């Protein structure tokens, strides 16, 4: 299970590839985030003379109904989606970790967490997302909270199993014998070993978070149409597609697809690196 052990066994192209993918991801992330900052407000200012232009040299992705440059809008949207995804996935991982720790505290806690897991897995994700977004009245925070609160169960199960294994390990028992407190053991022995799992969990959560954010927004429960989120761009584009303005839907969609794909691959190769057994499924 320890990364070092795996690594010595398979220090071949898998590690290299992961590294490359990670670099590519960071690059893409950096580009999108700095890109939207560099473009600034100027780039997405409406220009009523240049409405609904098809892609061309001046506007790589064309312009929208208000004459805003679609390329800038897409970059802006991606960066917003990335932020939302980062926060949601981060929160989701945290929730998973906390619940996994709680479930190891004793039988009643374990049962309670088990019930919660069953409940969340029993409700279709999107229905629960709609419920939570509805409860919070929509908006960015609502989406972040909703996604964070729906995506933890599988990771929790995984972490819980991992935790049980570690707690029963000899060196942990020894630590207890030396009279160390539960908290001390948790922070010095247990949690550090969970970090790789958490990182992988986070990376695998991330694409889901972005996709669900877009879906929720598309249905009208998420970010408001004033915000340039990808889900908003796609929902808006739906009206114009049948009138022939295909670029409004195609480019933001492709951008989203690529972003999600990159992170998905990064998560998968990290998983393969840290936990080769699970990577199979």
């Amino acid at each position: 299970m320890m990364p070092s052990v795996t690594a010595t066994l398979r220090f071949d192209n898998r590690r290299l590839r992961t590294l490359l993918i990670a670099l590519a991801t960071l690059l893409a992330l950096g580009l999108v985030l700095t890109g939207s900052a560099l473009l600034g407000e100027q780039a997405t200012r409406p220009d009523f003379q240049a409405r609904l232009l098809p892609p061309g040299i001046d506007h790589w992705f064309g312009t929208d109904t208000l004459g805003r440059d679609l390329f800038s809008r897409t970059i802006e949207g991606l960066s917003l989606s990335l932020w939302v995804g980062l926060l949601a996935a981060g929160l989701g991982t945290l929730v998973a970790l906390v619940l996994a720790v709680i479930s190891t505290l004793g039988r009643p806690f374990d049962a309670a967490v088990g019930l919660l897991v069953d409940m969340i897995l029993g409700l279709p994700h999107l229905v629960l997302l709609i419920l939570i977004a509805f409860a919070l009245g929509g908006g960015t925070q609502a989406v972040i909270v909703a996604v964070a609160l729906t995506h933890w169960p599988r990771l929790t199960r995984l972490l819980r199993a991992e935790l049980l294994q570690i707690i029963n390990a000899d060196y942990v028992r020894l630590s207890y014998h030396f009279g160390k407190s539960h908290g001390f053991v948790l922070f010095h022995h247990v949690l550090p070993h969970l970090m790789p799992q958490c990182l992988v969990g986070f990376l695998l959560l991330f694409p889901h978070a972005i996709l669900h954010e877009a879906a929720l927004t598309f249905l009208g429960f998420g970010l408001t149409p004033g915000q340039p989120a990808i889900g908003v761009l796609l929902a808006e584009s739906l009206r114009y597609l049948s009138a022939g303005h295909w670029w409004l839907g195609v480019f933001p969609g492709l951008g989203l697809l690529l972003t999600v794909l990159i992170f998905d691959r990064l998560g998968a190769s990290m998983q393969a690196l840290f936990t080769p057994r699970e990577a199979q499924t």
Partner: protein
Amino acid sequence: MPRRFVFWPASVAICLSFTFPLPVLAKDELVLAIGGEPDQGYDPLLGWGQYGHPLFQSTLLVRRADLSSKPDLATAWSLSDDRLTWTLELRDDVRFSDGSPLTATDVAFTFNQAAKAGGRADLSVLQHARALDDRHVRLTLKEPRITFVESFYTLGIVPAAGRDNGYHDSYGRQPLGSGPYQLVEWQEGEQLIVERNPYFHGPTPAFERLVFLFTGEDTTLAAANAGRLDVAAVPPALAGQPPTGMYPLEMETVDNRGILFPMHPDDGERRGTGAPIGNDVTADPAIRHAINLALDREMLVEVALHGHGRPAYGPADGLPWSNPEDQIEDANPEAAIALLEDADWRLGDNGLRHKNGQTARFRLTYPASDSTRQMLAEVVAAMLTPLGIEAQPTGRHWDEIEREALHRDAILFGWGSHSPQEIYYLYHSQHAGQAFYNAGDYANATVDDYLDAAQQAASFEDSLSLWQKAQWDGETGYGMRGDAAWAWLVNLEHVYYVDECLDLGELPIAPHGHGWPLTASLLDWQWECD
């Protein structure tokens, strides 16, 4: 394997296309996609028929294209001197679509039931309705309110619950009425199929069968392009070249958009709901007048409505109760700047005007889900920049607007009704600060007097001049020349693609709500080809 996968749907589709019956072309059937599916069903007591023709039911009176009244179920009507009692005489030859007669009992039941149904039909001013005999009905009001007549045009009469075929809980799905058509099938979320009612008392409609498709905008357009529709509602943004064989029909409306201004300075006060009240900038009449003057409304129509609309100068442009004299020369930034200078709003270094330490800046809030309003807000903001006024377009959810913005920000609203009752809600001080009604706390005693006098008029016709005076009486009023409580921007135009053979007759100015209002002229529809 992948290759086979791609090709089989194609071959199946080709096979299937032969098995389909094409739409019948002997024109006794029309297929329309004009939206407006009532999820609650076709129950007038819950609000069905507020716009356009109720289809299954008939009403006491109907409107002509010029909005004047024409008898339908009622042949005579009169209002008592204390303005509290309406007495109506009914036709005696009216039958429901199952052949049973419609009597005063049914009318009285409909009004009484609608008053307590808790739906979208608002009859809260009705005290009670009573059938005097089979042909006479008396409606008693709680207070004089001339706009009650609106219900004569919109409330479809249903059979009284006491009869065998009477009103019941699921009436909305099995509507029975005396209208020109009867329900054949309603496939919820998809389509409504209706056929002529053989017992209809009016002229026989030209089409035996109508099919209303409840498709989304884009689907409607696709279906129209595929030649499957006789009438299609098209969002203005998409209205370009109509499909072959169809012509574009533009229906004028009072479906308007305008900016509501908070009328009071911010004193730190709050509503019961916790919403803050007041705005120091918009409370200054000079700012409101300058905005009204500077806006280029033609340009707004061009950009935000893609040319499908007309400038709006009041809440009911073109309707008999709006005052044509409340007119200004807009698109005039120079005059606006002069006006601001006179009022001591001085240009500062940042390009904005100041007065007494106050910067000419306010939020222009719009409901975030509405892209037309977003566009209007953006364009308005751009038009005000040269004046040194900064309007900040801000999109928010409705509930957030209610909590935060309703009485503090300038807000982009949309109204438009066939009843002047709306004027009363928007401008009477009695409704000041009540949720969406007069959210800007507009209050002018003279205007209040006119509005109240209008409600107490002896007839609807008599009330018209009073409504007009409330807008502008030569000295004051809620309109642009008076207090300029609003800056009205545009009236939308509803666009339809209509089959070249189909004549829809003369259409009235439509209220708020795209789609169903088109059916107002239902009985005049004709097929011109053979």
